């Protein structure tokens, strides 16, 4: 009995001393959990979002939710990884939130989607993966000259299925700065920039000219050209200092039965935004630094 006990203690000690494998995620040590809003309208660059079939996405979603085939939840309060504490939303409330007073169902007001996702940038395969856990259609409308927005319901699909393509080559910008720290949990900007600078310098990763966003031409950049675009040496600290947002180029897939959305990240672009005081007007502008394409 005593020897068994000693063996168990030894086993526990060995287990606790087991080396923790370093994360393969270039964004941080563990998981990155993100809440972010994607605007489905872009008045300056309409082609960025024109590949999204909003009619298909919303009509099938609302059909399933209103007919109680899929559970949707009240979009208030703390929601995240668990749906146990969430309350199912009633049809009447959805109609009220959408201001559907008659039988006419319109989806024009749904101009944004809020996503709750996990992000991984795989260092070995150089792939940016997003897992969409939940999403919320957002109604946007004007009243007395004020712009109002309302989250309609929260969808947290139990099963994840890829489904059919619902958006091809959708482009949007995601700002890394946010007044709410719990929007981006675990994102390590310094880790990401260090990884990128190291691998671009060593030639393992290719950076491409931001002109891609204009003509879709892929032109590899040399380190000298990157530095010309940045206007400063290409170092992790300088990149991290002004790295303000990421532009994503993605395909979205939608499964009409589970209402799950999957995103296939095809490319990202890093955007610089100098917010220092005493900068010239030219510097106080956003600049797309380079594109990175994933396998």
């Amino acid at each position: 009995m005593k020897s068994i006990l000693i063996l168990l203690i030894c086993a526990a000690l060995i287990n606790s001393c087991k080396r923790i494998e370093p994360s393969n995620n270039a964004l941080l040590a563990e998981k990155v959990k993100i809440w972010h809003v994607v605007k489905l309208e872009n008045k300056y660059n309409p082609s960025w979002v024109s590949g999204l079939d909003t009619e298909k996405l919303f009509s099938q979603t609302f059909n399933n939710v209103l007919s109680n085939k899929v559970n949707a939840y009240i979009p208030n309060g703390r929601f995240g990884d668990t749906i146990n504490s969430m309350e199912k939303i009633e049809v009447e409330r959805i109609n009220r939130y959408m201001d559907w007073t008659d039988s006419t169902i319109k989806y024009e007001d749904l101009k944004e989607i809020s996503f709750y996702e996990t992000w991984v940038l795989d260092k070995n395969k150089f792939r940016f993966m997003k897992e969409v856990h939940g999403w919320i259609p957002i109604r946007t409308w004007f009243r007395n000259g004020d712009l109002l927005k309302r989250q309609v319901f929260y969808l947290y699909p139990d099963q994840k299925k890829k489904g059919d393509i619902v958006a091809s080559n959708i482009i949007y910008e995601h700002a890394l700065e946010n007044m709410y720290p719990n929007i981006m949990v675990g994102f390590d900007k310094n880790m990401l920039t260090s990884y990128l600078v190291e691998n671009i310098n060593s030639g393992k990763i290719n950076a491409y000219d931001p002109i891609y966003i204009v003509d879709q031409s892929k032109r590899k950049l040399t380190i000298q050209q990157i530095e010309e675009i940045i206007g400063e040496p290409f170092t992790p600290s300088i990149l991290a200092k002004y790295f303000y947002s990421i532009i994503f180029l993605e395909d979205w897939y939608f499964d009409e039965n589970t209402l799950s959305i999957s995103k296939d990240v095809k490319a990202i672009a890093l955007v610089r935004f100098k917010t220092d005081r005493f900068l010239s007007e030219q510097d106080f502008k956003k600049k797309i630094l380079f594109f990175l394409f994933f396998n």
Partner: protein
Amino acid sequence: MDKKNIDIILKVGIEKGSDVPSFLNWNKEKSWNILSQKRKKRILLISIKYAAIFLIGISIFSIFYFVTYDSHQRSFQNDHIHLSEYEKRLKLLEIEEKLSGNYFQNIICENCDGIIYKTVESELQINPFIF
């Protein structure tokens, strides 16, 4: 040589199992000249008819292709491909200027039953934990 003679030659050739080269050796120009004006006209009309059908078909296909084929892809590849390098760089500057930002905005949770945000700027930052 009239139409009747040509037909007889063809018929005999087919019956004898005449090989292809003998048909190819035909003096086409001579045969064409021999054909009556009426037949020439008919052949021309048929040729024009088929050419017209072909052209109409191509046109319909092109319209269908350009209207329906991945309009987004086209719009993204867009009209900028033919621009000069200078014009492309100007376009890039324009895009960069119009990138949305999340700075300088006020958000008010006007009615937390369903969370209504009232924004001064057109941007929304959602705090899912607002209360």
